[in-house]
């Protein structure tokens, strides 16, 4: 990051006094007579090892000797950089900090979370220092977290069942170990837990089916506009699903009651990673950091006032970050120069400043059929992964910046957010933990932390909608969605 050129520091004149301890090595000024006289004194001092060390002066008599601020030298450039960092550290408000952070505009790569580029997920992992771990992190999901009280739960009505399950869950949550309660694991608690969970699940399944049927069957709609299939059915279905589930699960998760639901919010994040040499122009030959900007528009997001708990400790190492030995422009990524924005969906003054869950809709351009026709079936999952990694990195990093952290002041606690990426039928779930913001060329060597992204493959929620009914509804996807929405800090 370059320094602001408007600041002019007074050049401090250094007066050489005939004091041996103050004479620097580089000083080649003509020695004054006083210095020569003291030379003997200096020898005298050095021949006497038993002499006590000189007591340090209470305050330095002379200003510190530092490099120039305005000279055309590497040291001066370094000093300008240090002054800039100091300015950002000392900024009074977060808005001022963000303003200074993104003040200098230069051409930067625009990173699109929803991209057709091949193997984009590996590239995005290398840009954001993210480790991708397949599968969701082990934690107690709602089904297994309900204590096994089979007969009692199954026989009662919905509200009562929820109450007993809720009361039992708070007691049993401490007893159950997260590792043992993986969603698909068939343990002894599963049949009993299923009985209690069925009641909740039945209502949620009905909600989901009703939303799907309303949008795709019951509502009289015209034919979809050309290449706007996603706006016709999946987009309203996703809005309906997310908002009705969030409302339904408010009782179980008080964080959702205090949450804020945004439709089509804007997420922006700007960062530096790596170095390159400027290729052409008046700055040719200079070594510049590589700048990136993500401008994302998820379909829906839920923001909460309290942070989600960490999944693994801050310094965990769960894998390797892929290394890509090419310039980012080979992905392809293109450069443009415009405002450097950092935004989580609402301004800094909003109390709901932490993220909970985002819902992304894959656009028509990237639907599965196109990939199959082009013989690129393995790239289908890449689309979901790239979307999850890039969007969640941008969101969590912007949340961290809203709390005052940046690449010179790395995060002291991990920031966790979740995302659901779907194209209307296939759902993929992602969970991201931001452990480090230090991605610039200097800071990345000092920090050994890596960001972690857990993600699943895309699975269908249903097979087909026919004649007013949904065939082949997949409860596993529903359970994962419910588990995501019920995620909350431990004290709630």
């Amino acid at each position: 990051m370059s320094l602001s050129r408007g600041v002019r520091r007074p050049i401090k004149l250094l007066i050489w006094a005939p004091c041996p301890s103050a004479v620097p090595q580089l000083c080649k000024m003509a020695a004054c007579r006083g210095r020569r006289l003291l030379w003997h004194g200096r020898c005298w001092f050095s021949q006497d090892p038993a002499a006590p060390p000189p007591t340090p002066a209470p305050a330095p008599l002379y200003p510190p000797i530092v490099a120039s601020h305005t000279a055309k030298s590497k040291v001066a450039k370094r000093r300008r950089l240090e002054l800039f960092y100091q300015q950002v550290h000392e900024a009074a408000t977060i808005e001022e900090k963000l303003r200074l952070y993104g003040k200098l505009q230069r051409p930067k790569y625009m990173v699109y979370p929803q991209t057709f580029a091949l193997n984009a997920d590996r590239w995005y992992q290398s840009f954001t220092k993210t480790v991708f771990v397949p599968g969701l992190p082990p934690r107690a999901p709602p089904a297994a977290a309900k204590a096994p009280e089979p007969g009692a739960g199954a026989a009662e009505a919905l509200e009562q069942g929820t109450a007993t399950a809720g009361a039992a869950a708070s007691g049993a949550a401490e007893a159950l170990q997260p590792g043992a309660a993986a969603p698909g694991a068939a343990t002894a608690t599963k049949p009993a837990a299923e009985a209690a969970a069925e009641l909740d699940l039945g209502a949620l399944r009905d909600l989901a089916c009703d939303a799907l049927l309303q949008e795709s069957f019951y509502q009289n709609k015209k034919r979809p506009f050309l290449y706007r299939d996603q706006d016709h059915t999946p987009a309203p279905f996703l809005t309906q699903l997310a908002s009705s589930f969030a409302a339904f699960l408010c009782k179980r998760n008080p964080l959702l009651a205090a949450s804020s639901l945004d439709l089509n919010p804007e997420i922006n994040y700007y960062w530096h990673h790596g170095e390159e040499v400027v290729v052409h122009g008046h700055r040719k030959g200079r070594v510049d950091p590589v700048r990136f900007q993500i401008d994302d528009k998820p379909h829906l997001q839920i923001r909460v006032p309290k942070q989600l708990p960490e999944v693994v400790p801050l310094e965990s190492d769960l894998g390797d970050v892929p290394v890509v030995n090419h310039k980012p422009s080979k992905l392809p990524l293109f450069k443009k120069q415009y405002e450097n924005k950092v935004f989580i969906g609402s301004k800094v003054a909003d109390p709901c400043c932490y993220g909970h869950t985002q819902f992304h809709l894959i656009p028509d351009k990237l639907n599965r059929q196109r990939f199959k026709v082009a013989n690129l079936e393995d790239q289908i999952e890449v689309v979901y992964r790239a979307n999850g990694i890039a969007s969640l990195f941008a969101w969590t990093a912007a949340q961290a910046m809203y709390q005052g952290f940046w690449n010179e002041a790395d995060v002291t606690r991990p920031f966790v957010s979740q995302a659901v990426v779907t194209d209307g039928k296939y759902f993929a779930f992602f969970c991201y933990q931001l452990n480090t913001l230090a991605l610039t060329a200097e800071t990345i060597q000092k920090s050994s932390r890596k960001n972690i992204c857990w993600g699943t493959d895309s699975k269908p929620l249903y097979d087909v909608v026919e004649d007013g009914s949904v065939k082949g509804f997949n409860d596993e996807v529903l359970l994962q969605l419910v588990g995501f929405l019920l995620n909350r800090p431990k004290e709630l």
Partner: protein
Amino acid sequence: VTPPLSQPEENSHLRVFLLLFRGVRQAQWLTKTKLVQGLPAAVLSIAENPAHQLQEQEEAVHRAIAHARLWETTEVAPRREKYCPVLFEDLIHLCRSMSMKYPSLARRMLARNYRIAATWERESTLLQIRGLNGILMNSMTPIPPIASKEEILATKDHVLETFYPISPTIDLQEVIVYQELNDTGFKDGYPYSHPHTLYFLESANNRPNRFRPEQLRAKMLMFAFGNALAKARVLYGNDPQVLEQPIVVQSVGTDGQLFQFLVFQLNTTDLVSNDGIKNLVWIDSDQKLYESAQCVPEVKKRVVTKPTGIYGLQPETFKKFLALYLHGTV
């Protein structure tokens, strides 16, 4: 000149433009309705009841308004096209969280971009209403009728206001209709078959493109009537008759700051003659949710006189909004 009412359809011969020069009074004649100022007592009692309120409701409403008007965009101040829908979504999100207390509120579904069609005859003129109107909230159970039998019978004595010598249909567009269509917008077998509340968002940036409050109220009345009539035709057939079970449809219209509340009860589909039982409508107009929203602090002579924020919050307006949402379930 008032702006047009409903959007044009794709077949030009079925288009309807509705210009209401007299506002609600003209809409009353067209729908054979008697007006009662203020919301009905049933709704007001829900609004006043402290049990039907969210925790820290005022704060939550304040946050919702601040989010819509101040925080939701990277620009300094969001425009009405953005903040009006965002405010509506935030308020609906708050209302939906009431399903914590009343789980049957989960049996509601919002429908956007749906099309209504209703036709009726009024003193030898065939009228029809069509097209995209607003956001409809459907519910599985109908709202119980508000007015008692006596009040309904009392409407017989009410005389509809005419505008002699001006015909009330003077500014309605005349089209040739090939098909008298009555369509609720949804197929048969739809589980959420009862229209509950219709929401209108006047979110155009320019004032000429927005409906003024009087015209907005008239539009709300016409579409509430259209929805109720289409539902009545589905339930009771096409013959004009007095309904034993009146159909109630509510409506809320807003431009981001002013709210108009409306409750409409369809008592009869016999609309040809001017006498007989009339329909009833309760209107509560021009309720401000907040006085003003300061996006940039007002500075006079280098002193901040008015910091950023929302001023003049009136929580009663949200209580009425919530009461209309809860009506029928609570």
